[in-house]
């Protein structure tokens, strides 16, 4: 299905990543957002508050992030495409409802414009230290999808993609921005509405008597129903059967949780997106994402000037992590170098899949600014020794 032209601001713009994210949400068909503004994500919300009412949408400023994150889930069950936007401290508060969204298979998009933490940390400065929190932050086992843009243009493109993935897999989907990308202003080209592909809500074709709210289709994802059309739906955070009613035993738990994990795990290759360049013949592959992928390019240029063969693997979809690709490459290269604006998070995944077949070097950074490209070059140079 194509985007609704009413929400698409076709043309070339010079806007920051936060604003581009709002435009991506509009283009994707999002018409409901609830939020509690927090630096450095405030500009997304400001633009949402200004833009949504003009296209038949609604924005509610809630009393806190708990309220914001549950309001969007209600709106999603009411039929809307929804998102909320926050940063570290708010993201921590939202964890409970992220688990609820995963358990109830509510399609929704969360945007985390990452700033340096923990706690209130450095509100106006960048980090990428919520990468494990997004994967594991709520209690229990579940799968999620997370994307990481490295430019305002990608903030637009990947917000649309986040909505499409959320609808396809009925899963909370996360746009893991960072302060740097959020507050960076560049050219953003928004195509015509008929060039933007959007995934509509997956509704059942079964009549109300035959429909089971949690009966999975072939790809392990169940279809939803439009509210107010005579279907009975029960939505609970308790372990439930295919009818949606609580069932308090281990067999039901096993059946449900396996599917919640498998619907992402078994579709991982379909969901994954990464970019590679000059992998052929490389001795070192730099794995990065978000703002660090741009800064790393400078470090890579410096290392190449010194004759080192460096390949690049940039994660666009960060979760599910493309572990199979790391496993393949680890037999062909000497080492992975993983710069990130945290003390070592996604590097753990690289290391796990490399499984000793290639060395893994972390280039940690506590956040507050980006890496000095020379630091990255130095680690690349040490990695080939």
């Amino acid at each position, binding site marked *: 299905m194509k985007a609704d032209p009413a929400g698409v601001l076709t043309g*070339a*713009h*010079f806007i920051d990543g936060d604003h581009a994210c709002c435009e991506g949400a509009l283009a994707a068909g999002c018409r409901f957002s609830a939020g509690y503004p927090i*630096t*450095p994500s405030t500009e997304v919300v400001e633009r949402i508050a200004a833009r949504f009412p003009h296209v038949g949408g609604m924005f509610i400023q809630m009393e806190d992030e708990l309220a914001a994150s549950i309001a969007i889930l209600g709106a999603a069950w009411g039929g809307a495409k929804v998102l909320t936007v926050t940063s570290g401290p708010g993201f921590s508060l939202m964890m409970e409802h992220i688990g609820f969204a995963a358990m109830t298979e509510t399609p929704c998009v969360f945007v985390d414009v990452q700033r340096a933490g923990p706690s209130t940390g450095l509100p*106006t*400065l960048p980090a990428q230290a919520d990468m494990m929190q997004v994967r594991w932050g709520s209690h229990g086992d579940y799968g999620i999808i997370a994307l990481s843009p490295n430019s305002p243009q990608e903030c637009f493109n990947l917000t649309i993609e986040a909505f499409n993935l959320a609808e396809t897999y009925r899963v909370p989907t996360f746009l893991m921005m960072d*302060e*740097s990308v959020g*507050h*960076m*202003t*560049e*050219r953003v080209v928004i195509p015509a509405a008929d060039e933007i592909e959007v995934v509509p809500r997956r509704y059942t074709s079964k009549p109300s008597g035959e429909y089971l709210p949690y009966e999975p289709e072939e790809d392990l994802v169940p279809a939803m129903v439009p509210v107010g059309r005579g279907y009975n739906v029960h939505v609970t955070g308790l372990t439930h059967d295919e009818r949606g009613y609580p069932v308090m035993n281990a067999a039901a738990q096993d059946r449900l949780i396996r599917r919640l994990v498998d619907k992402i795990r078994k579709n991982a290759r379909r969901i994954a997106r990464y970019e590679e360049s000059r992998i052929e013949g490389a001795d070192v592959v730099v794995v990065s994402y978000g*703002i660090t992928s*741009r*800064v790393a*390019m*400078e470090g890579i240029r410096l290392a190449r000037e010194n004759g080192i063969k460096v390949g690049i693997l940039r994660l666009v979809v960060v979760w599910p992590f493309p572990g199979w690709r790391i496993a393949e490459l680890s037999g062909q290269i000497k080492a992975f170098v993983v710069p990130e604006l945290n003390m070592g998070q996604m590097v753990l995944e690289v290391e796990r899949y490399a499984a000793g077949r290639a060395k893994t070097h972390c280039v940690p950074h506590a956040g507050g*600014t*980006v890496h000095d*490209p020379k630091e990255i070059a130095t680690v690349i140079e040490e990695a080939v020794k």
Partner: protein
Amino acid sequence: MSRTEVKIGGFGGQGVILTGLVLGKAAALYGGLNATMIQSFGPEARGSACSSQLVISDQEILYPYVRQPNILVAINQEAYTKFVPELAPDGLLLFEEDLVHVDERVGHRRARGIPATRIAEELGNRIVVNMVMLGFFSATTGLLREEAVREAVRVSVPRGTEELNLEAYGRGVEYGIRN
């Protein structure tokens, strides 16, 4: 044209961010170039010194921050004092000559001043001081086509103020050419 780093500094309220935005639009939307703008966020941006950082290039811009500006636009003393040490050794300083006292710290770098606030006041509103500086920037650096900058001014300023802003821009250009 390879990577050019520009830093604009002044008081909050002197239109520092808008100036960066106009330059960025002129480059990225009307000039066929790439531009990345970063605003300075932090406690220091509120009420006192405020800066906008811009990278302009005909190549893809990867590293987004300004490390050693090639051009520094200082609209107040504080911006000059704070940022002039960062200016590249062969860099260019453009300054508001009534508000900035240039001293030995500028070294051998090129420095050109303009009484931008006075010119803005002659036009009836000192709020357009940034547009005068922008015109001066255009004429002095030749970095961007004048038409591209004019178009960027037109689409960036509040509706109804286009004429005043473009006039201020024009006066800055004139001053730059004459002096």
